[in-house]
């Protein structure tokens, strides 16, 4: 799939981002709100793709990392009201620690076993949120007193450029030697180790990087929405949406994940007239893509360029 050079892809992506930066001039605040959510879930999906597509780790718990970041930042803000950047930094740090905790079983168990550990991590976090309701707001959700900005345009530009920066970093990383080593350890850990690469170190790095972006995005999201709840950021269905976005966009492409995330948000909005059935249709379309075009949108794009 490495048919287009890294610089060309980055230039095309930059052009799209710059074009998207002018969107607030034309569209309403409602559309911006949708796109903001799409951009944040794009970051979640890219971070997931780094773990799955490159390190080969099936992580069913992306929301464990996101939730840890979001709730740490939100609870800190609720209790002591420090400056917002401090809350966000603390949330990110907590998510990175969560990433290390999550990585420990990954170094011992493989495949479905690791998938289950991550699922358990999500369930534990959810239980913690419900049981420690005095800190987390329980099932009602957590409301934070501060937001970054009340202007849709400012929030939109933050989300857009944050996504662009994360995307660029993750993409360059995936195309660097580190990305290749990760890919090698994901496909055959024993052989990668025999070639002299430190598989453990690289996998741990992948977890930390994935957790860093997930947690940072989660914390930023809390201060955009002004609240957090288990059903909107921790629940397994949220994690599934992230995985679907990454697979739809094309796994092992990083940037494809953003396409998938935007597609999911646009589709569920376009199908809103169908009411409760709209989610059904979105998931059915996702299933068809998984069954018929396993390489996702990005795979289709690169292939059509290859043919031309």
């Amino acid at each position, binding site marked *: 799939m490495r048919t287009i050079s890294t610089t060309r892809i980055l230039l095309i992506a930059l052009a799209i981002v710059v074009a998207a930066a002018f969107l607030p001039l034309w569209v309403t605040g409602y559309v911006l709100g949708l796109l903001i959510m799409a951009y944040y879930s794009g970051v979640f999906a890219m971070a997931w793709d780094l773990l799955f597509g490159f390190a080969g780790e099936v992580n069913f718990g992306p929301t464990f990392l996101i939730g840890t970041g979001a709730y740490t930042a939100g609870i800190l803000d609720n209790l002591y009201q420090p400056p917002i950047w401090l809350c966000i930094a603390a949330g990110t740090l907590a998510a990175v620690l969560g990433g290390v905790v999550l990585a420990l079983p990954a170094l011992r168990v493989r495949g479905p076993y690791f998938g*289950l550990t991550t699922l358990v991590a999500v369930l534990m976090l959810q239980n913690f949120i419900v049981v420690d309701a005095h800190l987390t707001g329980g099932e009602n959700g957590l409301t934070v007193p501060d937001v970054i900005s009340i202007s849709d345009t400012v929030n939109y530009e933050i989300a857009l450029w944050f996504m662009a920066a994360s995307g660029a970093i993750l993409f360059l990383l995936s195309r660097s030697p580190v990305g290749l080593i990760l890919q090698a350890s994901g496909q055959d850990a024993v052989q990668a180790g025999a070639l002299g690469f430190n598989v453990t170190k690289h996998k741990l790095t992948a977890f930390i990087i994935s957790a860093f972006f997930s947690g940072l995005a989660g914390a930023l999201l809390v201060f955009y929405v002004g609240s957090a709840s288990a059903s909107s950021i921790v629940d397994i*269905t949220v994690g599934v949406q992230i995985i679907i976005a990454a697979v739809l966009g094309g796994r092992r492409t990083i940037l494809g994940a953003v396409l998938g995330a935007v597609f999911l948000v646009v589709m569920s909005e376009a199908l809103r007239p169908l009411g*409760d059935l709209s989610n059904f249709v979105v998931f059915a379309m996702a299933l068809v893509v998984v069954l018929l075009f396993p390489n996702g949108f990005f795979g289709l794009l690169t292939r059509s360029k290859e043919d031309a």
Partner: protein
Amino acid sequence: MVFWQILIDGFAISSLYALGATGFALIFGVSGVLNLSHGALMVAAVVAAWAAGNDLHAGPYWGAALGIAVGFALSLVTYFAIVRPLQRTRKIREEEKEIFILTATLLWGIMIQQMIAYLYTDNAKTVAPIVQGVVSLAGVRTPTNEFFTAVVCWLAIAVLWLLVNRTRAGKAVLAASMNPLGITLLGVELSRVYIAVWAIYGVLVGVAGVLLGMFLGISSYSAGPLTASAFSIVVLGGLGSVPGALIAAYVVGYLETITAYLVSPAYRTIPALLLLIAVMYVRPRGLLGRR
């Protein structure tokens, strides 16, 4: 008093877990597929049995029959429309098929869940039990239905055991779980074995679902937790090992019941999850796992 209560309640819920997880373990043992639409299939069986009583005014036996039929039919659809195309495709690399089957069955499960919520709302539904009444045993009043549930679960498991160990087709299934290549060399059509396993699985899911619906109120939200509990029971017991799954079902069922009675229902699932993590650190292949 509480002791007997826990003993009886725990036994009934554990038998249900055992039946639900057996099918899940069977599919994994034979075809290496983790079916994440498991919970959704069970919920579909519950809702079908409920709708038969509610909309069609059918008796509990007909309702149960319809529920099992729906579980059976959906299981075969899952295999033919989703699992088999992915197993046979050449577009996906062999080592990545596992994650694709996981994702696809997960999506399929959510689709079933959404469809149920759309057609029958996401309110909890309770199926009218086949056996009514209450039994007093050791000073504890227990619905007769709980005993009925436990008996039917064990009958179904016994029938499965006979089927696998005493019939020719069942032995082929057992052999396929040990060595798929070996059995094709002996002239057994592997895809037939798969179809047989998914058919058995469908019946088990249907029975477990209908019984669960008579025991507890089930809504479309239950699909995820049901899949997760089957998954964790099967991992605890050792992936692909049916006896392991049975033991694990009782461990998890009693652990949950004890916590719910003695600590708080809010903490119900936590000890089982902690145990699962501990087992995976100490003995990643589970209690009776082969690999």
